[in-house]
């Protein structure tokens, strides 16, 4: 009975990569991929010891969903991760439309790339920073890491203090893009 209902569902899904590449699959559950004009069957297996893998062109690729948040996926394949948002044809259209509406924010936040302790903050509110300039020193795993700004602009807010510990993705500094 369940089998029957599956067929009725619109099943075309698109994975949109962070570099804006799209990968379209007619029905992923049918485990076949359109490749160079042909439908190619993929073998998707789960080992009894807990690894999932795809056999593709006679090679095994180990796969794992390492992060999932609604339709946002990060998938690890052979140790390399890729991020996608999974879209339907309609949601993709809507997304593309919204992107044309110019919501590019001028405010950029610098987030902690890893959990750690703030050793030093080299900027304060109002400081001008250049792209690539070190703004924070974060200690994690016994190494002091220089965190650089990835934009040029003016510091709007500093939300961390020296000697404070931060978690991954905590916003440390906000910069108004020049």
């Amino acid at each position: 009975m369940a089998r029957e209902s599956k067929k009725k569902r619109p099943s075309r899904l698109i994975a949109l990569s962070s570099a804006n590449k799209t990968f379209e699959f007619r029905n992923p559950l049918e485990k076949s991929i359109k490749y160079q004009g042909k439908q190619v069957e993929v073998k998707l297996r789960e080992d009894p010891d807990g690894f999932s893998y795809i056999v593709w062109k006679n090679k095994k690729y180990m796969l794992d969903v390492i992060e999932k948040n609604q339709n946002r996926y990060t998938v690890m394949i052979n140790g390399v991760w890729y991020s996608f948002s999974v879209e339907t044809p309609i949601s993709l259209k809507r997304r593309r439309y919204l992107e044309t509406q110019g919501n590019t924010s001028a405010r950029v936040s610098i987030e902690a790339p890893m959990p750690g302790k703030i050793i030093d903050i080299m900027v304060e509110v109002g400081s001008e920073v250049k792209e690539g300039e070190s703004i924070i020193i974060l200690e994690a795993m016994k190494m002091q890491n220089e965190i650089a700004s990835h934009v040029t602009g003016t510091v709007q807010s500093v939300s961390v203090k020296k000697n404070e510990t931060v978690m991954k993705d905590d916003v440390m500094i906000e910069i108004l893009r020049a």
Partner: protein
Amino acid sequence: MKIKSILIANRGEIALRIMRTAKKMGIKIFAIKTFKEPNAWYLDEADEIIDFSECFDDNKPEFLDIERIIHAAKKHRVDSIHPGYGFLSENPEFARRCEEEGIVFIGPSHDAIYRMGNKTIAKKLAKSHNVPLLEGSKGAVANALEAAEIAGKIGYPVILKAAAGGGGRGMRVVEKEKDVERMFTLATNEAEKAFNNPAVFIEKFVREPRHIEFQILADKHGNVVHLGERECSIQRKHQKLLEESPSPALNEKLRKEMGEAAIRIAKSVNYYSAGTVEFLLDAKNHYSFMEMNTRIQVEHPVTEMVTGIDLIEQMILIAEGEKLAFTQKEIKLKGWAIEWRINAEDVQSGFSPSLGTIEKISWPEEDYIRVDTGVRDGSVITPYYDSMIAKLIVYGEDRDQALQRSSAAIRKFWIKGTNTTLAFCRAVLQNNNFRKGKFNTSFLSTELKIHYHHEPDEEMLAAFFATYDYARELNDMEDKPLYVEKGKDIAPWVMNKRLR
């Protein structure tokens, strides 16, 4: 004196490595349990556990607490202590306290540790024993101003190094005078944190050198041999990422010359136990002494693979007072071994640490593959210790075969639950100059543009898997009736939708 018991003042893979040999020798093992990893694997393999988990004082980490370890060893009447690498392994005070209390320290004398650990004394010794070295400050540099002055004299670039250092911590290269102050602060902070000693010295920085080190074994009767070299040039921020033995850069003549220099260094401090003499080798094959590591090294397995000598066993025998059972002539390097360090790091995010739980780990079992690891299924990677979780050591008849076997082994080395440097290992293996043996310590910044390797269809397959998982979830949600009592099995967002 026969050693009957060892307290291992360490954790992780090296604790397990020491246990393996100790068990073979019929020695009883004591291990230290901490609150940071109460379920670590190494604890299961020990004969007795000494519980340090009562301590929550972050300022004195368990494996750095000399008096507590000595006290525990005495209380349990342990014969000897093996410090492993890192932590107290190169702390002369620790070795001295062991000697004082009549506990055998499985390592060199406190005096040898002190003199080789102090870069100023070590350099003087090297100089007086006719071993080439680099220009630099005579000792620790007092402040950034003095650092700038000396750097001006010997010329940029220079390198700031922790006087008590090792392992790449507390080291900074200074390219221009205007960076001196910032780099000086970074280096001293890091040195203080890592070694409890902020002192840094300065020396000429050799651009694009190779990092070559020699393994030494010396007994308490004055016999010293070297076990050939290890090539450790593939590094990131002075942290080694892979090592091989022998080095593609050395020929028999240079090996002999550098090996003899290494032996002279060891003899200059009446060294005994296993030790490593590190050299920089420039493009013209001029070598200069860098430092001596007075402990077992992370990368010791490659030497064991090509010499057939168990270095931990040798350390124990030497500590017992045994004479070396072989001469220099009897040591033959056979074949080629490469060690790939597998770190819990996210290579795609600039090698940032990746914490989490190892859900699954597996690797191919072959007689030419050795894996030294401290983790197994369910192990937790904590932020307390460094990020290395496993070492994959691959042996071949020659370098080509070792590389070929490495490629296959890395493909089949699977870890689920954390990011690892395996994709980096694949990237290195794909590089032509690496395959040809043409590389130096700048390899990562100059040669390897992308630090991880991916194959053409990988992204597409990953995309497929994301859509597959998404579709399957949708499907499950619509097909399955909702059992309230099984509610916890349902993804929260599904639950949310149902309840609305």
